[in-house]
């Protein structure tokens, strides 16, 4: 995703990446980054929580329009309102993805 932002930015369209892995977006050299400490699949927050979604989008727009230089990262100060163990389980698919299944099988055959 950060690299897609780079290609679109290089074509002349300013971009901001809203991501739960801002350190990775920095490493991959995204031009503007907003970090959110939310589970995967929830870049803009909790379902139906319009106030939380608005805080994320408004920060993204501020960074998009206001960042002065390449590599600007601003983190949003909102804690995920669901206990970690529950949230960690909840975002993951019921059936492991094909690549995860393959990794698990490889690990099992090694042990």
């Amino acid at each position: 995703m950060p690299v897609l932002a780079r290609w679109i930015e290089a074509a002349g369209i300013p971009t901001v990446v809203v991501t739960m892995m801002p350190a990775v977006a920095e490493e991959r050299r995204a031009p503007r980054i907003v970090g959110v400490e939310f589970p995967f699949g929830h870049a803009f927050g909790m379902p139906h929580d319009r106030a939380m979604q608005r805080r994320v989008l408004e920060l993204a727009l501020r960074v998009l329009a206001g960042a002065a230089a390449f590599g600007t990262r601003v983190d949003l100060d909102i804690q995920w309102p669901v206990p970690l163990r529950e949230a960690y389980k909840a975002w993951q698919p019921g059936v492991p993805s094909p690549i995860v299944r393959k990794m698990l099988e490889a690990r099992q055959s090694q042990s």
Partner: protein
Amino acid sequence: MIAQHLGHLRNHRDHVTNRVISQCHTFHVIVDSYRFLPRSFRPLYEGRGPFPGEEGPVWAPFEKRLSESRIALLTSAGLYLKGSQQSFDVEREKVHEEWGDPTWRAIPSAARPDEIAVAHLHINDEDLLADSEIAVPMHLLTELASEGVVGGSVADNVSVMGYQDRSLRDWRDTTAPAIVAHLREHGADALVLAPA
């Protein structure tokens, strides 16, 4: 007493270090980037650096006022319109585990929640189906446009399926240029991207 003095110096140095960080345009780091990631996946992401050829800065200045700008959204959650669009090809991924569908879909801002489906094997789609605004806040953006916070929103936002890291060739050669052409055609001044 000396220890106290050294402690004071150390604190002072920490303060200076933080100022240096802020000069690199990173503000106070709050987010733990690996909080929700299984520990065994962390080495796949951390410390990998930029992709080859993608080391340098790229920068398109944001030149207009936000209130005069048309904004577009892009999600990598694999959203598509179930009535009129083909799903991202998850069947092929089930057979070729390292392959992810590199195509893209245009998602109209006016799409109803019950028109939207999700094709992404790496996340639980329950919350996305309950409220797709958590991935692509199209209705919220329309609302901000009606309030004058932004100048407007595009009629069609963009959806991709984000499992691509193993081969970026199709995204780079085909998908990215097509998305750029789409954004230009729709008069987008800037893009907010959100990975799933």
